[in-house]
């Protein structure tokens, strides 16, 4: 990796949202709302402008020198473990900061309208700015520990924002669940980091031990721990990116305000796991096992979440499960070594899923915070712009050409097919389910008769421009956003791949970059023995790859259109929306799905209750009450009282006693020294 050109303005990308947080957080209600909003939106917009500058500056450099660095300070100098705090922009993080600040600005703007009447207006923007700060630290970090700081920071903000309306106990419970579940993942992350640090400390000179550049330069040192560290880091990713087994917090996280769901729980934070794995690609290419686990877990998550989404009636829950499912796709891409494609889907998904959430927020806003789709319907005529933009997003997520989702999803499925046709089959099924539940969501919300009560009905209205404008911008992005990865077999140049290539240079031949780069792939074979088999595959498939790509693309396009059509037909023709799902699926499967496979219940009985019982009966009644309180606390207290008694004799304020104690010490020491030395 190129050591990078210095760029001191990078720190301001991070600092602007932090300053925004400080202003809104400290002055809070003393600020007029207009000032709060200006500071909140302005700081992120400013960061966006700087991010664009960084991007342009990066693009002007030759491809293999595209790294900008801003060394901040020496952070943890402890013996051989020297960790610096520094920021780094390479093609990968450039994509991410543009995404975070760009989509972030739009969502901040939307929030001005959405939260207009809320009590905690300034507090909301303070948290949101703090989140953007932490997320930017996460993606700009040049070392694993600094990434972890951002990782924990976004987790904290997620907790604060899920429980934003903390007066309602259910909301704070949801926040707590997110926090605790993530703690499990973060523990894995920490352990993984320790394994790596243990291998590298003292082996790589005085440099930044856990810096990405240092680690990437010494893949051979990481080889012995690649599998264990890779799996542990992935455990962290399953927490943050809501994968099996730790996905359970994300649907509950919908308790937060809808802009939060759009920004944190759809567009940015939940993709941090995917980003981290892509960032650590030099580690993961060395471990077939971890890669296999990631691919399978991603695929299973995609499938499970998509099936649950079929029967949810809360509009945000459908989108939440849809997010989990799409994150599964991204993990699948990483697992088959197609890191660039995973990041591609991160970007396109951010556009259309943010749009879907904001659209849903617009609907909820109009429906007086009613989220149940069974009470909606017929909103198409009342909320034309919300409907139009959400329809674009539906086409995008379903994967209809030439909307954004088509390109990224199609490429993931193609890469999965190259790895194993079985992966493709399941992924293909998920695509069909996705189009179907989205059609269901659109029909139940926007078509048919309105099922709301009279009062709500009379107040239905389209949202103000400050909310619809971001929807429109995102709608445009949901159309054109995929074109940056227009594949070569369709006459495009796949710009994004070439852009990201320097970051994943080490991946070389590992399936990901093979399309049309067979010549480049053979280079990789020489350097990475692990990749040899994949390179062979690549050479093998390279011959008929164009045909395969055409066939697969047409297949996924037709399944998207077919499934959408099927969904629209089924749900527009049926009258009783409440029972149709059950009628369509049959009793038992429906119960299983609407019970979300009873995973929450399983965790409740298998983990939470036993821990509760253990804490209650063993840890509290025995360990705490008997051992700690009885033996240690009271025992120590008694012991101390005894010492105190002795001390009181000595520490009695009489100087002659002090001198005696002094003399005793001197004698003891002299005896020791004379025995030892004399």
């Amino acid at each position, binding site marked *: 990796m190129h050591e990078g050109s210095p760029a001191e303005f990078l720190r301001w990308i991070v600092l602007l949202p932090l300053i925004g947080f400080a202003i809104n957080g400290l002055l809070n209600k003393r600020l007029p709302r207009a000032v709060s909003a200006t500071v909140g939106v302005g700081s992120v917009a400013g960061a966006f402008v700087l991010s664009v500058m960084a991007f342009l500056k990066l693009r002007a450099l030759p491809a293999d020198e595209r790294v900008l660095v801003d060394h901040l300070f020496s952070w943890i100098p402890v*013996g051989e473990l020297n960790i610096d705090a520094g920021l780094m922009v390479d093609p990968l993080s450039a994509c991410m900061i543009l995404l975070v600040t760009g989509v972030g600005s739009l969502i901040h703007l939307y929030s001005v309208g959405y939260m207009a009447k809320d009590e905690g207006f300034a507090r909301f923007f303070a948290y949101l700015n703090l989140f953007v700060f932490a997320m930017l630290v996460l993606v700009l970090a040049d070392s694993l520990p600094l990434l972890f700081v951002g990782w924990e920071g976004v987790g904290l903000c997620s907790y604060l924002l899920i429980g934003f309306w903390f007066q309602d106990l259910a909301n704070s419970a949801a926040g707590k669940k997110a926090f605790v579940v993530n703690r499990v993942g973060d523990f894995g992350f920490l352990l993984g980091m320790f394994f790596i640090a243990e291998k590298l400390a003292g082996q790589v000179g005085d440099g930044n031990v856990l810096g990405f550049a240092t680690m990437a330069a010494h893949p051979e040192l990481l080889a012995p721990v690649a599998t264990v560290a890779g799996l542990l880091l992935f455990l962290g990713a399953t927490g943050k990116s809501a994968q099996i087994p730790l996905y359970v917090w994300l649907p509950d996280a919908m308790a937060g305000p809808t802009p939060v769901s759009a920004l944190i729980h759809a567009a940015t934070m939940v993709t941090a796991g995917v980003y981290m794995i892509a960032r650590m690609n030099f580690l993961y290419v060395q471990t077939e096992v971890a890669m296999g686990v990631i691919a399978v877990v991603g695929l299973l998550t995609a499938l499970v979440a998509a099936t649950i989404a079929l029967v949810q009636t809360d509009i945000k829950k459908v989108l939440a499960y849809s997010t989990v499912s799409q994150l599964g796709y991204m993990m699948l891409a990483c697992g088959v070594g197609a890191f660039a494609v995973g990041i591609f889907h991160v970007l396109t998904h951010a556009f259309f899923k943010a749009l879907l959430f904001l659209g849903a927020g617009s609907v909820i806003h109009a429906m007086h915070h009613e989220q149940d789709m069974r009470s909606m319907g017929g909103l198409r005529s009342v909320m034309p712009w919300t409907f139009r933009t959400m329809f674009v997003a539906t086409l995008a997520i379903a994967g209809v050409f030439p909307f954004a989702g088509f390109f990224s999803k199609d490429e993931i499925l193609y890469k999965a097919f190259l790895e194993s046709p079985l992966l493709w089959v399941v992924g293909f099924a998920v695509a069909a389910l996705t189009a179907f539940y989205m059609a269901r969501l659109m029909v139940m919300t926007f078509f048919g008769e309105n099922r709301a009560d009279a009062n709500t009905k009379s107040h239905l209205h389209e949202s103000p421009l400050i909310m619809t404008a971001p929807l429109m911008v995102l709608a445009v992005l949901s159309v054109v956003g995929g074109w940056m990865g227009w594949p070569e077999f369709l006459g495009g140049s796949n710009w994004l791949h070439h852009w990201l290539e320097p970051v994943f240079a080490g991946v070389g031949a590992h399936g990901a970059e093979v399309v049309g780069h067979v010549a480049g792939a053979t280079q990789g074979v020489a350097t990475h023995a692990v990749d040899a088999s994949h390179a062979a595959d690549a050479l093998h498939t390279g011959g008929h790859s164009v045909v395969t790509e055409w066939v697969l693309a047409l297949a996924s396009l037709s399944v998207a259109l077919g499934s959408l059509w099927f969904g629209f037909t089924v749900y527009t023709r049926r009258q009783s929306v409440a029972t149709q799902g059950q009628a369509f699926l049959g009793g038992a499967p429906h119960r299983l799905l609407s019970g979300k496979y009873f995973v929450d219940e399983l965790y409740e009985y298998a983990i939470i209750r036993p821990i509760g019982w253990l804490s209650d009966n063993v840890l509290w009644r025995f360990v705490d009450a008997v051992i700690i309180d009885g033996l240690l606390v009271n025992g120590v207290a008694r012991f101390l009282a005894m010492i105190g008694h002795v001390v009181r004799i000595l520490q009695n304020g009489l100087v002659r006693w*002090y001198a005696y104690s002094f003399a005793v*010490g001197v004698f003891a020491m002299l005896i020791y020294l004379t025995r030892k030395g004399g």
Partner: protein
Amino acid sequence: MTWSDASLIAPILWVTLGGVAVLMTDAFWRRAGTGHLTAVSVVFLTIAAIYAARSDASGSAFAGALAADSFSAFFNLTFIVVALITLALGSSYFADEEQPLVEFFPLVMFATVGMMVMAAATDMITIFLGLETMSISLYVLAALQRRSILSMEAGFKYLILGAFSSAFLLYGMALLYGSTGSTHLPTMATAIQGVGFDRDLLFWMGWGFLLVGLGFKIAMVPFHMWTPDVYDGSPAPVAGFMAAGVKAASFAAMLRVVWTGLPALGDMWIDMLVVFAVVTMTAGNLIALAQSNLKRMLAYSAIAHAGYLLVGIVATTPSMTDPAARGILFYLMVYALMNLGAFALITLVSSREGEKVDLAGFAGLARRHPVISACVTVFMLSLAGIPPTAGFWGKVYVFEAAVRDGHTVLAVIALLNSAVAMFYYLRVVVLMYMREPEDEAYTGLDPQVGAAMVVLAVALLWIGLFPGPMAELARQGVSALAGSF
């Protein structure tokens, strides 16, 4: 004395001049109040600080009696910072007395001179000179409040026991001179490389007595008994000055002395120091648990911290990259800051209501003074060694060095001690935030002391978040020491 000698010890000279200047101001300007005296002192201390920070001249002055190097520069800066904050606390503390206690200002300056001489000394005679300059000033400072029987008692006890320990120190030095034929530390270091010193009783007794003398000043158990009584009786700013400055100066001298004896004969006496370290920190922490008076609690906490620092001494070896010595320097600077902060709280409370520093008096403080309470929380967390405060790094550096040096058991004991200590530090925080205030609880606010506390708290958080620069400063300080032997 040549000009080059004078320029090498410029910071010491400026502080001395400052002390004289304060005396003169008071003598010839009848209406000079504490504010004026503070201003004069601050000017001279600032000049000294500039000289200390900017001096790139290093070398040996007065025929090897003093050394000007980055080690002494580091400590000079530490002492000047300590003196500045002490003056800030003291000028408002003593302003309320019927008769302003103007002696406070020159005495603090002269004690600072003594400390600086100790850190710069490369000869046993100069160490003794510095130590006595410092101590005699402090005896008077402790007894400064003539009308308070407690203050008188503190000064008197400190004087008697101090004289007792100085006798040991001086006797130890004499024996060492008899054994090695020199009082010049580098010459001694060369001498004990010779054959037979490991069995030279004269040498070992001298060594032991020297350790007793320095151990008294750092409050090493069992030479610690004066600490609680003296801290308790002394005026709060003076107690803070003692805790921060005296400890740093004595450890500076100890590092210089230890590095002469340690390389050749370290394994002979290192396990003795291990025992002292364990006993010191354990006794300090256990007794601190039972204190209900904040001043006494901090006195025992000071004893415990001396134990942690001894862990660093155990692990230290004279080399350019030694993490332990670096850790001690870092720890001493941080320890000075957090202790001054804690004693600033006492200054704040006791200056208005006599010497009432019962822990219960802090109940509910957060309700009335959120900023002050937040600062105190930072000091307590830092003393307990919890990130993101600077105290955490001090402990990390010292304990990590101990583990690296093979003293894992010692490091574990130190960690367990830190856990015990958590209780009494956090109790203050609990009292401030989670208890209802008592009726006669503290209500006033002295802006000068408050400002000092905010500065200290911010500094501790800053160093805690960005330990790099301070660690680098400490590393440079050590590198000079390693080079001089």
